[in-house]
């Protein structure tokens, strides 16, 4: 047996041959672009005049930190992320509880409820612009007809409502992610815990708080950290729906970076924004690692 293991690990040539394509591709298409992005953050770079590219030290970061729009974007990204995660978590847990209960036809419902995850963001943004159209959209029509509102709501052209619309889009698309993770965990909760609680006379709400929530704690932390990292850096969900507007009211850092690079042709500033995003990402990842390690110790 030991000789066999030795045989398996001895023919290194095969092993190295199999890993080689990955190493090459990863260096060329993953490591290099990220390193290049960090380098660009310290250079002024105009794609129309690449010959004028020059090392500028921390000038791009100085530009960034003195730009009020950068701080607005940071703040709006924070609001956007926190509200999205809040609603995703509440709805996700709620829907997962419903799905967990229903036995008959559960596969059917689960399939349909996961559907938003695979719909292209472009399609969702188009549909959103259509159903939330202030004059001819079905949402305003229904709300007006049922008397909930008296005047049409300008979903995408007032700063507050535009923010609300992008949050709705984000929640609609990514709640399935939370549902799947929570559902998987719910199915492993031992039923005896509920029986014991029932014997003790705990009602539905008490059982949820005392039994279900503690069981879900770990999976929720992981899901929330992951979703926070990803939501904070989302680009398409905002850009395709509002282009960061009206004005700059729905800018987040990704949209800010894109606009700096694409519209203002300040690729250095765009890259510097990217570096700030990466630093936050790193902090998020460290938090994640800490938390998961913490979970292991408790177990």
């Amino acid at each position, binding site marked *: 047996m030991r000789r066999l293991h030795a045989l398996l690990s001895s023919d290194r040539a095969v092993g190295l041959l199999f890993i080689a394509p*990955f190493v090459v591709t990863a260096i060329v298409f993953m490591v*290099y672009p990220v390193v290049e992005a960090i380098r660009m953050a310290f250079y002024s770079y105009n794609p129309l005049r690449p010959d004028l590219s020059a090392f500028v030290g921390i000038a791009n970061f100085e530009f960034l930190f003195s730009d009020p729009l950068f701080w607005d974007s940071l703040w709006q990204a924070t609001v956007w992320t926190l509200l999205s995660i809040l609603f995703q978590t509440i709805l996700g847990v709620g829907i997962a509880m419903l799905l967990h209960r229903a036995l008959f036809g559960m596969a059917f419902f689960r399939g*349909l409820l996961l559907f938003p995850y*695979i719909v292209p963001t472009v399609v969702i943004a188009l549909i959103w612009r*259509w159903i939330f159209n202030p004059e001819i959209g079905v949402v305003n*029509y229904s709300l007006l007809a049922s008397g909930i509102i008296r005047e049409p709501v300008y979903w995408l052209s007032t700063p507050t409502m535009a923010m609300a619309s992008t949050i709705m889009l984000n929640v609609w698309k990514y709640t399935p*992610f939370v549902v799947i993770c929570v559902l*998987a965990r719910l199915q492993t909760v031992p039923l005896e815990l509920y029986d014991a609680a029932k014997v003790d006379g705990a009602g539905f709400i008490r059982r949820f708080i005392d039994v279900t929530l503690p069981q879900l704690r770990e999976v929720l932390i992981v899901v929330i950290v992951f979703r926070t990292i990803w939501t904070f*850096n989302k680009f398409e969900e905002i850009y395709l729906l509002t282009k960061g507007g009206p004005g700059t009211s729905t800018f987040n850092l990704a949209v800010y970076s894109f606009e700096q690079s694409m519209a203002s042709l300040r690729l250095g500033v765009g*890259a510097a924004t990217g570096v700030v995003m990466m630093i936050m990402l790193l902090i998020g990842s460290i938090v994640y690692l800490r938390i998961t390690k913490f979970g292991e110790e408790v177990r």
Partner: protein
Amino acid sequence: MLTRKQLWRAARDALLYVSLCTVTFIVCFPLIWALSTSLKPKSEIFATPPTLVPRTLTFENYEALLTGRQQYYHSGPQTAPSGPTPAQFFTRWFVNSVIVTAGSTLISIVISTLAAYSLTRFRYWGRSVVPYFSLLGYMVPSIIFVFPLFLMMVRLELTDSLWSLIFGYVSITLPFCMWLMWAFMRSIPIEIEEAALIDGASRYQVFRQVVLPTALPGIIAASIFAMIVSWNDYLFGRVFINSLDNLTLTVGVMLFFEGTHVDWGLLMAASVLMTVPMAILFMALQRHLVAGFGAGAVKG
């Protein structure tokens, strides 16, 4: 006779299914509405009250997209713009999307399957770092490396070609394909391979006849995720491609918004056609998709 307890339980179940149906309806409503709009004639799209089920069923929007005929795009209240219209390019963009999705998925899957096999079956320096490196890789948002990658494509003279997109999508899909394949390969017991090797099979035979079939569910899950990510991407297509001929669906369809008159019927038909391929994949392979969610290898 029903006892009180049975009645209570029936009422609770009914409430459960009613709330499930409501949630499902809300979740699916935008898609249902898009489908409904796409099947209506112009006059009915703006009708008040709006109709969920079209009174007159028409396929003119789909026909316009698939045959590229101009008149439907031009039939709005505005005067017709000269030059090509987005509808004329729809089939071309569709083919482009299929090519880049298939190409990048194939490359990512082949590379990550080989690498995962190597990482879990051979011993060498650094093999434990690679999966975590990949995990970190798929946390990095594409907005950060899209411009450096673009400048690289400029130097390789690949801009405005489908190759640039294929390589771009490899860079986003490879990390999580790698992670998923690694997690999957690790869970396959090594004993069967050892037995095959003892029986005198070559390394190549073992890989093709033992490893690949067992790893198939993992390969399918990774492929679905890779395909969804490539098919749905907008950012790379927007930055890398300039000519109408080489656009993919996502970027192309957003062009329908340019100009003064938006043809909602046509747009919704385009949206439906863009969603259908992924929906079919999703329904056919849903079981594997859920497994992939479980492995935590989801980008999104």
